[in-house]
C-alpha cells in the first residue's frame, strides 16, 4: 500500500478557502441504456488536466489528504470501497461521471466532497485515478499449475 506522504491540514486550508463554486451541470452516463434510443439533453464535462503528470501527482496527495485511501486503499486498489485502479467503473469512467461521483457522492457510501473540495481539486483526483494503469489480464485468475 502506498503511504501518505503529506500532512493534510495545509492542503485542507488551501482548498476550503476557495471552495465557493457553482454546481456542475448534469452529464450523460455512457453505461446507461437510453429509453427509445434517445439520449436526454445533458452537458458534457471534460477534465482540464487530462493526462497532466503534475496534476496526477497532486491528485495522489489529495487522495491521501482527504482520506480517500481510508476506504479505497493505498494505490486505490480497493478496500471497504471498490477498486478505482482496475479500469472498471460502477458509475461510469468518463470525465464527467468521475467528477460527479466525487462532487455529489454516490448512494452506497461514497461521501459527497463537493462541499469541501473545489472543482480544480476534484479534477486533480480524477487525473490521478485516470493515470493508474489497470492490469491487462485482470479478468482471469488461475490457480492451475
Amino acid at each position, binding site marked *: *500500500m*502506498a*503511504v*501518505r*506522504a*503529506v*500532512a*493534510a*491540514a495545509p492542503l*485542507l486550508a488551501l482548498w476550503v478557502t476557495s471552495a465557493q463554486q457553482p454546481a456542475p451541470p448534469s452529464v450523460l452516463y455512457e453505461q446507461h441504456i437510453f429509453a427509445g434510443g434517445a439520449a436526454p439533453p445533458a452537458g458534457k464535462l471534460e477534465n482540464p488536466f487530462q493526462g497532466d503528470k503534475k496534476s496526477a501527482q497532486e491528485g495522489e496527495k489529495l487522495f*491521501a*489528504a*482527504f*482520506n480517500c*485511501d*481510508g*476506504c479505497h*486503499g*493505498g494505490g486505490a*486498489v*480497493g*478496500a*471497504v*470501497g*471498490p*477498486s478505482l485502479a*482496475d479500469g*472498471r*467503473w*460502477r458509475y461510469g469512467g468518463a470525465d464527467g461521471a468521475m467528477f460527479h461521483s466525487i462532487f455529489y457522492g454516490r*448512494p*452506497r*457510501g*461514497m*461521501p459527497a466532497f463537493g462541499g*469541501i473540495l473545489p472543482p480544480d481539486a476534484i479534477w486533480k483526483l480524477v487525473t490521478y485515478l485516470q493515470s493508474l494503469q489497470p*492490469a491487462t489480464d*485482470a*479478468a482471469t*485468475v488461475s*490457480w492451475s499449475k
Partner: protein
Amino acid sequence: MGYVTSLIVMLGAAPAVQEDGQWTMPAKDYAASRYSGLTGINTANVKRLRAAWSFSTGVLAGHEGQPLVVNNTMYVVTPYPNVLYAFDLTEEGYPLKWKYRPYVNPAAIGIACCDVINRGAFYAQGKIVYNLLDGHTVAVDAATGKELWRTRVADVNQGESTPMAPLVVRDRVIVGTSGGEYGVRGWVKGLDLESGRIVWTAYNAGPDAEVLAGPETFKPFYDRGRDLARNSWPPDGWKHGGAPVWGWLSYDPALDLLYYGTGNPAPYNAEQRPGDNKWATSVLARRPGDGALIWAYQFTPADNWDYDSVQEMILADLAIKGRRRKVLVHFDKNGFAYTIDRATGEVLVAEPYVTVNWARRVSLATGRPELDSTKLTGASRGNVTDICPTLEGGKNQQPAAYSPQTGLFYVPTNNMCMDYQTAPVTYLAGTPYMGVSAPYKPGPGGHLGAFIAWDAARGKKLWEIREPYPVWSGALATAGGLVFYGTLDGWLKAADAKSGAVLWKFKVGSGVVGNPITFTGPDRRQYVAVYAGFGGDWFLLSGDVRSDDPADVRPPAGFMPDIARHTSLGGIIWLFAL
C-alpha cells in the same frame, strides 16, 4: 458429572444450571460463555452429524453474529440491509413466520470500516432487539414481526455506525457505537426496553461527568485522580478520539455489573494524541441501570498498533493460586490473555496466547505492559517492521467459548505479524480518520490462524489446531465434550474439547465469520446452526473474493494469495443434526 455439577453451582454469573435448549442472547448467557449443556451430539456420535437444512439470506456480505432460537422460532439478522427473519421450526422446511425489512440508510455503508456486518440480536420480554447499521436500535415483536419502537442512537454523519449486538438487562437495552476509524467519540447508551427512550449516555473519553465516573462510585484498581479520561489526551483530543464499542457485552447479576471493551484511540498516528488515551483499549464495568462507571482498566495505554479491546469479557469462577476468584477472561487484540478480578479490576493473570513482541510482559503490580521501544510507532518513526500481532489482533471480533466441563477457554486466533507506518491525518467528519499502512505477513509456523484451548487460571495454552487462514468464526462449547468453530475457507469443524482432535467437518459454501450455536428442536433433537458468509475485515483485505460487482476487481492479498481459490462471498444459514 459430579464435579461438573458442583462447579456450576459455585459459579456466580455463569452458564445457566438449567439447560432449556434455547439460545436467547448472542453469547448464550450473560457470562458470554457460548456453552450449551446439551449432550445429544457428543464425541461418540458427532461423526454422524449431517446437514439438515439451509437457507440463503439473499445478502452477500460478512455474516458475523449468530441466530437466536426462542419458542421454536429461529431469528436471523442479516448484514446490511439488516433484514430480520423468523423461521418456524415446527413446520417442515422451516418456512418463515414473518420477515421484517426496515429502511436502513445506505450512506452507512460508507462509514462501516470493515464490511457491513451485524453481530446479532437479543431476545427479551417478547421482543427481538437489534441494531441497524445506520445508527438505529429497533425492537420487534417476536411473535408478529411488528416494529415496536425504533430509536436513533448514532449519527452516520459523524462516522458512527451500529453493527454490534445489544445486551438487555432487566428493562435496559445497552448499545454502543462503532467508528474508531472515523474519529467518533465512543459511547454506550442505556435505552428503556418498553419505549426505546434513551435513559443514559456514557462516553468512554472526556470529563468525568460525561464518562459517568462519579467520585463516590468510580474506583479503578490501578489509577487515581479525577478526569482521567480527559487528562490523558491532548486538549480536545478525546472529542474525536475513537474508543468505540463494537464487540460483545456481558453482565454479572450478582455484582450488577455490565462489562464491555473499547476500541482503538484515533487517529492511528499516536503522535497526534500524546497520553494514555483513557478509556480507549480498555475494559469498563458499569451499572446497567444508570450507566455509572464502577471500575476501568486499560490493556494498551497510548495504543500504537490499533489494538482494540472490544473482545468479549467471559465471566467464570476460577481457582487461581489455590483461591477461588470471580474473574473475567479477555483475549485482547494485543496478544495477551487477561484473567481479571471482575469485582475490582485487578489483573490476576496476563500471558500471551499468540506470538507477541511489542511488549515483554504485563506487570501485575502496575497493570501496565512493559514495552519493547523498538516496536513503538508514530509518523516520525517511519516504517516499523515485524510487529506481532497485527492490527487484526491475536483475536478480533471472533468470540471465544468457556466450558465449565473442562474448565478451558476455546479461542479462535490469528497468527500474523505486520509492518506499521502512520502519517498525520486531518479530521473530516464522515471520512476515515486513520493514516496507516500496515501490510501483514504470516506469524511463526507459516499458518495464519489457530483454534486453541486456554487455561485462564494458569495462563497456559493446552493445545492448538492450526489453520491455513485466520480463524474468524466464534467458538461453541457443549456438554457433549465438543467444541465447534468455522474457518475462513469454509469448513465447519467439531473437535474433542479435551484433546483438540478434529472429529467432524463439513464445507459450508462460503467462509465462516459467524458464530456456531446449538439448540433443541421441536422434535427434541439437538441442532447446530452456523452462518456461511465470508467477509468482515477479510472483505477488505483478501483480494478478489467478490463476484457480485463487475466494477471491482482486485489483486490477490500478498499474505494469503489463494484464499479466493477456496471461497467467495455468501450468505447461507445452515442447520446440522444427527
